[in-house]
């Protein structure tokens, strides 16, 4: 059984484009402080940042639960928002419902969820239309990539 070493909860606000990335940055700093492999930290940073951008672009708000155990990192994002009607479609690279405004910010090209999955050793997504989406990414500490 993995032993939890560190757990932190963060709140992310929808539409708050200036603050998007702050949670990822804090998680990155926490992982650096405890001496995690830089390649693993980078993957955790990319996962959290893409998830944060999804929240900022599509949801009203979200709670991010970051857990570091002696085996892995878990990043769980519970958002309150419109939800995703067709998860298989949303997972396809290139599929996006982003507006031009979102694309002008460098996101919304249908790469966010695939990027999260690609950087995860374990990935789950559940969604309820009208309520929100829960995404969990697990990254193992012994990076074999």
């Amino acid at each position, binding site marked *: 059984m993995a032993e939890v070493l560190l757990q932190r909860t963060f709140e992310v606000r929808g539409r708050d484009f200036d603050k998007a990335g702050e949670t990822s940055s804090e998680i990155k700093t926490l992982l650096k402080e405890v001496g995690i492999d830089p390649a693993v930290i980078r993957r955790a940073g990319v996962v959290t940042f893409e998830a944060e951008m999804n929240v900022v672009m599509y949801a009203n708000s979200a709670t991010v639960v970051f857990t570091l155990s002696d085996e892995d990192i878990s990043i769980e994002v519970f958002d309150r928002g419109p939800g995703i009607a067709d998860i298989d479609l949303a997972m396809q690279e290139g599929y996006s419902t982003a507006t031009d405004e979102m694309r002008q*910010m460098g996101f919304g090209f249908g790469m966010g969820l695939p990027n999260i999955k690609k950087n995860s050793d374990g990935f789950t997504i559940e969604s309820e239309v009208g309520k929100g989406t829960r995404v969990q990414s697990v990254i193992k500490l012994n990076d074999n990539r």
Partner: protein
Amino acid sequence: MKLKDIVILLEAEVLSGAELLDIDIGTAVASDGMSEILAAPHPGALMITGLTNIQSVRTAEMADLPAILYVRGKRPNDKCLELAAAKRISVLATRIGMFETCGLLRERGVRGGM
């Protein structure tokens, strides 16, 4: 090639991190799509973009990119520069366009990262 030589080559303005220009740049990534850069992180690469919002700096931070070069005369705002300084990311700006910038760097041996 050294980042300080890239500054001279591209007649770039150094907007932040003037003390960090002595690093070697062997690889560059170029895109206005931040997810594209995040999809294939190349730690240590120069990030070339025309996107000047705060997410460009966050992207460099997450992908462990030590420097951002804004092309075609684009300049980030002060908030971006403050964040870049806090994260020790050099920020350069050139009037040259994306294609020409990439070509000039490629001619001098900088490799593409994506």
